[in-house]
């Protein structure tokens, strides 16, 4: 490295790597509690029905059953993600709205008994007509899901920025493009699992596979009525989340109610099929974009419409429908933009947030359209993008401020890195090359509920013996590497080596942290960690300065050693004092410089336990229009990718051969983790492009609820990857850092689509690119 930093910017080995590689890492399902019970859920077999009667008597009589609960046993409190749309209850009260809706739960001595008891519960349903698609749901006279939201409209958005009519009037070319993706599953490896423990003092502790301990804590308290101060949520290691785990789930709630009722710890877990029923993953989006251009390729105006197939409940959907429009404000300069978005209820599992929340299909549609138009205008798609690109300091027409934006640098990096110039237009039939760009928030500017809360607080305690520090954060390590990142930031801020930092995280007892979503942790928790680290350093060095009788300003810490500027200082008395403290120990410091260990011990002797705290809340961000809270962020990360594909023109099978990927993360904290996020994003984007689709039969049942039939990419499907990390230094980020978790997925789908367009001469506007869809497109092209 040799750069300005000692710890960050390097390739630290992840603090969890060895535990995970050796199977020692503890996930929720690995936890064991004395006397624990096993819970199971009864879920609706029908997509829409009135619940006439629930008879639990036979289940209750089964030996080993400890509790059976239905809506009669729990409060009717409505909950959900956005307070604006609390539309869920723990159990169906009078109606079930999708195959999988929760009707009852059981706790028993073992899982076998619990599952048997579930089968003994008798529910009388009166089937109701159901709607499975946007068209069905919006048809006049369609069956209605929620009385409060007529027309099956969960949410609608209407926005206009600039002056659309005036914009279009200036255009030489207006193009209209439609695009549709398919409903996704999160495809994380660890199905949700929750264990609730309710103790004699009335404290409820929940161990859950979640991305958001904080929000789960709030929902649990709100629904169970246990005071929030007595609800603790602990997140063990989590095997991926990608969005669907960013809200309290039925297991969290049911396990808690069952634990409170039985006084025993209760565990509940989803099977893989139940993961598909809980869903909360990517929506299906139907986009129509009418975009106006000047002859030279200048983008002028966009009129955008989108319908989202939402499923039976809102989940994150209110944010999703806003995101689907707002992030088209960049990364190209465009003065006029309108958006009409509709999220529609259907009798299917609820969709929610998934990596690239709300934006990836919109981005795919827009970037595909740019390629089509570039062709019509006879412009190189890269040159056309560069012509319109935003730079540092630009503000979008919908008031998002690009405090740093290395978009141009990313595009140029992939242009060079992929040998674009040598390949574009020069590949044999069936081979193609395409590119796309995109960007994403680096942390939502506002919490999901309205509040002035800090988004995160971090405490760093110096261990009393000196030498090591303990970082405590509520941040959620879900596999993305935040534990290592925070440890590195703490080490850098204090001026000690990474090995001197211990870290505990993912527990609401450690402080407030909104969790792992909207690519917020590195920037936000990073700020709080840095602040706490600087506070520790200040206290320790102030105490040391007093002890040495010199000014504080003369002292600094670097790599665990005290730097003293100016005249040499005789610290032998202090060292002797330290050694006496640890009489009999063999590893006494004897170097030329005082160590952090000595300084920290001296500080402890003076003040008692040394603690530094940090906090973060974004500054007031731009935009006063309705929905401005969705999309505003203290910073934006951006990406460009070039994809190269080969298409078998006879079978329609596509292979993505190579992806050249550049991402601006401001400043890499751990370079290896940045690249891993880039590769992971490509893998997820490639899956959505090529294979993934949750399918339903006409009765609303998932046809492919397994990872055998829902095809996420295997390692063999991954292209050769070249990752280029661009660092622009984000003024609003800790040490200049911003996101890489979601911005990196933005270009993947359209880059592949554009490469396929280049390879076969047809732009395919529907995902996934199955051989069948490709053959159909080829046949249509042949017919002209």
């Amino acid at each position: 490295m040799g750069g300005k930093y000692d710890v960050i910017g390097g390739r630290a080995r992840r603090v969890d790597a060895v535990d995970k590689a050796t199977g020692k890492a503890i996930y929720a399902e690995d936890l064991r509690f004395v006397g624990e019970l096993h819970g199971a859920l009864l879920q609706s077999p029908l997509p829409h029905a009135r619940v006439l009667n629930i008879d639990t008597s036979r289940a209750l009589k089964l030996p080993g059953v400890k509790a059976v609960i239905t809506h009669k046993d729990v409060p009717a409190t409505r909950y959900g993600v956005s307070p604006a749309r609390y539309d869920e209850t723990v159990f169906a009260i009078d109606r079930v709205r999708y195959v999988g809706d929760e009707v009852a739960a059981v706790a028993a001595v073992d899982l076998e008994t619990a599952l048997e008891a579930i089968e003994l519960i008798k529910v009388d349903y009166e089937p109701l007509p159901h709607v499975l698609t946007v068209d069905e749901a919006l048809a006049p006279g369609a069956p209605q899901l929620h009385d409060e939201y007529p027309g099956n409209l969960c949410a609608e958005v209407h926005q206009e920025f600039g002056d659309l009519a005036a914009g279009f009037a200036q255009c030489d070319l207006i193009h209209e493009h439609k695009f549709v993706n398919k409903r996704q599953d999160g495809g994380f490896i660890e199905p949700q699992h929750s264990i609730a423990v309710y103790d004699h003092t009335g404290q409820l502790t929940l161990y859950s596979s979640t991305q958001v301990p904080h929000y789960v804590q709030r929902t649990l308290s709100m629904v169970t009525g246990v005071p929030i101060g007595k609800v603790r949520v602990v997140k063990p290691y989590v095997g991926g989340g990608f969005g669907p785990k960013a809200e309290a789930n039925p297991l969290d709630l049911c396990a808690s109610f069952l634990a409170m009722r039985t006084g025993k710890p209760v565990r509940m877990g989803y099977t893989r099929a139940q993961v598909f029923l809980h869903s909360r993953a990517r929506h299906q989006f139907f986009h129509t974009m009418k975009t106006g251009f000047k002859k030279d390729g200048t983008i002028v105006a966009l009129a955008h419409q989108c319908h989202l197939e939402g499923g039976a409940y809102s989940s994150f959907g209110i944010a999703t429908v806003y995101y689907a429009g707002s992030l088209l404000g960049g990364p190209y300069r465009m003065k006029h933009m309108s958006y009409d978005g509709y999220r529609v209820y259907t009798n299917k599992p609820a969709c929610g947030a998934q990596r690239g929340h709300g934006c990836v299909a919109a981005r795919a549609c827009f970037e595909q359209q740019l390629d089509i138009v570039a062709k019509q205008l006879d412009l190189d798609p890269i040159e056309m993008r560069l012509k319109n690109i935003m730079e540092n300091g630009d503000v979008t027409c919908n008031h998002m401020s690009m405090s740093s934006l290395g978009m141009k640098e990313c595009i140029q990096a992939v242009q060079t890195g992929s040998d674009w110039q040598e390949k574009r237009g020069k590949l044999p039939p069936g081979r193609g090359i395409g590119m796309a760009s995109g960007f994403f928030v680096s942390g939502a500017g506002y919490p999901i509920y309205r509040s002035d809360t800090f988004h995160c607080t971090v405490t760093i305690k110096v261990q009393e013996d000196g030498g090591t520090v303990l970082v405590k954060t509520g941040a959620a390590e879900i596999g993305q590497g935040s534990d290592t990142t925070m440890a590195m930031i703490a080490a850098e801020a204090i001026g000690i080596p990474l090995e001197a930092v211990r870290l505990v995280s993912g527990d609401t007892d450690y402080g407030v942290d909104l969790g792992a979503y909207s690519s917020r942790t590195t920037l936000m928790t990073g700020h709080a960690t840095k602040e706490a680290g600087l506070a520790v350093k200040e206290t320790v060095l102030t105490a040391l300065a007093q002890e040495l009788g010199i000014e504080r300003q003369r002292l600094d810490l670097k790599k665990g050693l005290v730097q003293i500027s100016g005249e040499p200082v005789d610290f032998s008395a202090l060292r002797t004092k330290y050694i006496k403290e640890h009489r009999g120990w063999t590893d006494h410091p004897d170097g030329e410089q005082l160590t952090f260990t000595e300084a920290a011990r001296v500080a402890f002797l003076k003040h008692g336990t040394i603690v530094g705290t940090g906090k973060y809340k974004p500054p007031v961000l731009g935009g006063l229009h309705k929905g401005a809270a969705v999309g505003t962020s203290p910073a934006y990360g951006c990406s460009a990718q070039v994809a190269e594909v080969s298409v078998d023109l006879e079978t329609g099978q596509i292979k993505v051969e190579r992806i050249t990927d550049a991402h601006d993360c401001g400043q890499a904290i751990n370079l290896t983790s940045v690249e891993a996020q880039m590769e992971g994003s490509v893998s997820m984007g490639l899956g959505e492009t090529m294979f993934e689709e949750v399918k339903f039969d006409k009765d609303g049942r998932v046809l492919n609820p397994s990872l055998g039939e829902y095809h996420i990419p295997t390692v063999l499907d991954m292209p050769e990857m070249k990752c280029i990390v661009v660092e622009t230094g984000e003024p609003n980020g800790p040490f200049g850092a911003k996101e890489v978790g979601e911005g990196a997925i933005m270009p993947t789908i359209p880059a592949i689509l554009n490469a396929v367009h280049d390879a076969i001469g047809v732009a395919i506007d529907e995902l996934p690119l199955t051989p069948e869809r490709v053959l159909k497109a080829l046949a249509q092209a042949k017919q002209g």
Partner: protein
Amino acid sequence: MLLPRFEYHRPARLDEALAILAQHQGQAAVLAGGTDLLVGMKHKLMKPAHVVGLEALEGFGQIQEQEGMLLLGPMLTASALAGEPGVRARATALALGAGVLGSPQVRNRATVGGNVCNARPAADMCVPLLALGATALLQSAHGAREVPLSEFFLGPGRTVRTPGELLCGVKLPAGGPGVGSGYQKLGLRQALEIALVNVAAFVALEDDGQTVKTARVALGAVAPTPILSPGAEAALTGQVISEELIRQAAQAAAADARPIDDHRGSADFRRQEVLVLTRRALQQAWQAARQD
């Protein structure tokens, strides 16, 4: 997901195994690698009271060659078949099919006996075996019989095997000079794919090196069982092989396919792929036949 309760038997001798099967007629399931059986049991598709493991039976994992025939033990795994030079040379299509079944972990467990008895229309070893002209060797406490694979499959998951019978081997003519086979599989992913369409082809040439003596084309995922294409066989047999002949045979195979529309693909699409894959499989087979 939990396995239903069952009693496990681990016979060390064949007669013992057959006796257990005879005793628990219909109540016992045979366990080879378990990659189909255990998945099905966890999904409660079957709840056998007895499970009879074949792991301890001697000789069930062997390959023998006698009188121009290859004799495959039912417990041979997909990875063993894919890697075995004798199989690669003499039953190429089978080695190719076994090599693309599932993933490395699955291939290490999945057996040829399990693949055949499980009888899925797209099974990666059934389709090649059908093209290679294989015969199932069945044995029960009451005796033994041989059933050509072309008569073995009845429907998805259904075969002529009775509950008391064990598949004790698969027999097929060993390839040699002038004989070749090929295998083509179309899926979405590069691994862990049940074929959308798969095709195996077998060609034996006369001594002149160009007239087709025997040919068989087997199609997967286009009927309730893996099927042979009589049309392709008729188009090829007795003719001088050429690219054009192969094209005609492929057309005949597409006409013989009886695909349906389902959520994995439409019938039209499958038929179209049969055409392409048959051509490629036959080219592979011809290439191999010319090489020896």
